[in-house]
C-alpha cells in the first residue's frame, strides 16, 4: 500500500491509503465518537456522530465511511463538530424511551456514556414518546424497541458474521423498527439461530438475555472483532 500524507487537527500524519478516516484516527489516538461503528462488520454511517470537517468540502462527512486521500486536511473537534455531536446525541435520546434508571444496560450503555461524553445535561427537543413493543417471545432473549437507536449493528452482525439474516429494518423515517423475519415475533423466527451475537453487538439495552435484571447487563462487543479476526486466519 502506498503511503500518503494527511493532516488531522493540524497534526501531520503518514498513513496508508485506502483506510477510512476513522481507522486512521483510532490508530493515532484521536478520539472520534461513534455509535453504529462496530469492529468486525461493515460501516454504514447511520449514527452521524463521527462527522468530521474536511477542508474544501462544504458538508460534514462521516469518518467511518470516508476514505483518506492525499493532502486531506481533517478537523475532528471544532466548535461546529461539537455542536453537531451534542445535537445528534440529544436527538437519539429524544427519539425513543430511554429511561436509564430502569434499564438493564444502566452503567454499561454506550448511549449513556455518549451522553456523559458530550456533557448532555438536558434535551432541548420534545421527546417523541413512541408506543414501542417489547418482544419477549424468544425463549432466552428480549428485544426492547424502546431502547433501540437504529444503529443496525445487530442487523449487520446477523447477516455478515452469523449469516442468518434474521434481522432487518422495516418502514422509514421515525417509524423505522428492527424486525425479525416477516415482522414476526422473534420467538417464531425461522432464521434465528439463537447465537446471541446481536446481544453483544447492541450498544444499548435494546437486546438482552432474559436471565438478568436492571443494571446487570454485561456486553462484549469486542467478541465480534475477535471472531472475525479468527475467521480471517482460517481458524
Amino acid at each position, binding site marked *: 500500500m502506498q503511503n500518503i500524507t494527511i493532516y488531522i487537527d493540524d497534526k501531520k500524519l503518514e498513513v496508508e491509503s485506502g483506510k477510512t478516516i476513522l481507522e486512521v484516527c483510532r490508530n493515532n489516538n484521536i478520539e472520534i465518537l461513534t455509535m453504529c461503528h462496530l469492529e468486525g462488520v461493515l460501516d454504514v454511517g447511520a449514527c452521524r456522530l463521527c462527522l468530521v470537517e474536511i477542508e474544501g468540502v462544504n458538508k460534514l462527512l462521516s469518518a467511518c465511511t470516508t476514505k483518506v486521500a492525499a493532502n486531506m486536511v481533517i478537523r475532528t473537534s471544532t466548535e461546529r463538530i461539537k455542536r453537531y455531536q451534542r445535537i445528534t446525541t440529544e436527538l437519539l435520546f429524544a427519539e425513543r424511551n430511554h429511561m436509564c434508571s430502569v434499564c438493564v444496560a444502566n452503567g454499561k450503555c454506550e448511549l449513556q456514556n455518549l451522553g456523559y461524553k458530550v456533557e448532555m445535561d438536558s434535551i432541548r427537543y420534545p421527546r417523541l414518546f413512541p408506543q414501542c413493543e417489547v418482544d419477549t417471545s424468544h425463549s432466552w432473549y428480549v428485544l426492547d424497541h424502546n431502547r433501540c437507536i437504529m444503529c443496525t449493528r445487530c442487523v449487520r452482525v446477523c447477516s455478515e458474521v452469523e449469516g442468518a*439474516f434474521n434481522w432487518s429494518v*422495516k418502514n422509514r423515517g421515525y417509524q423505522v423498527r428492527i424486525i425479525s*423475519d416477516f415482522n414476526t415475533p422473534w420467538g417464531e423466527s425461522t432464521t434465528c439461530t439463537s447465537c446471541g451475537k446481536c446481544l453483544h453487538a447492541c450498544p444499548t439495552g435494546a437486546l438482552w438475555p432474559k436471565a438478568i435484571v436492571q443494571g446487570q447487563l454485561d456486553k462484549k462487543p469486542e467478541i465480534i472483532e475477535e471472531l472475525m479476526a479468527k475467521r480471517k486466519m482460517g481458524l
Partner: protein
Amino acid sequence: MSTEIVSSEKEIQNTDPRIKLIAAKMKKENYKADALIEILHTAQNAYGYLPMNILKFITKELKLPPSRVYSTVSFYHFFSLKSKGEHTCLVCTGTACYVKGALGLLDEIEHKFSLKPGQVSADNKLGVQVARCIGACGLAPAVVLDDEVHGKLTNEMITDSINAKIK
C-alpha cells in the same frame, strides 16, 4: 417455515391463476435476488396489494431472507400489505387541490361513506387514500378513481362518481 409455505403455496397454485403471472415473472428474471422489486411490482399489480402467502412464495422461490423481503415491501410506499379495496379513491391534497377544497371532498366522503383516508370499507368495495400532488393542478380539486383522473370536482360530483363505481 417449510411446511407452512409448502401448504400455502399448493393452496395458491390450485386456486389462483394470478400466481402463474408471478411465477412466470420470476422465471423471466431467472430467480435473481436483485429482481425482487420488479417481481413485487408484478404481484402488487395482480392483487392490488401483497398478501402474506404471496410474499412467502416469492421469498422461497428467490431464496431470500424473509426479513429482506419484508423490509423492501415496507420501505416503498407503492407496496401495500393490506388490501386497498376493490375500488380506490385517491384524493389529491397538494397545494392547488387543497386551496380548491380537497378537504371538503374528504369530509363529504367521510360523511357519505364513513371512510377516512387510509381506510377500506367493511365489504372491501372502496378504499380511500390521499396523495401529496398527482400533478394535475389545472384540474383542482382532483381525485383518481381506479386510475381515472376526475377533475374540478364538487361534493355532489364526488359522491355520484364513487356510487357509479361501487354499485
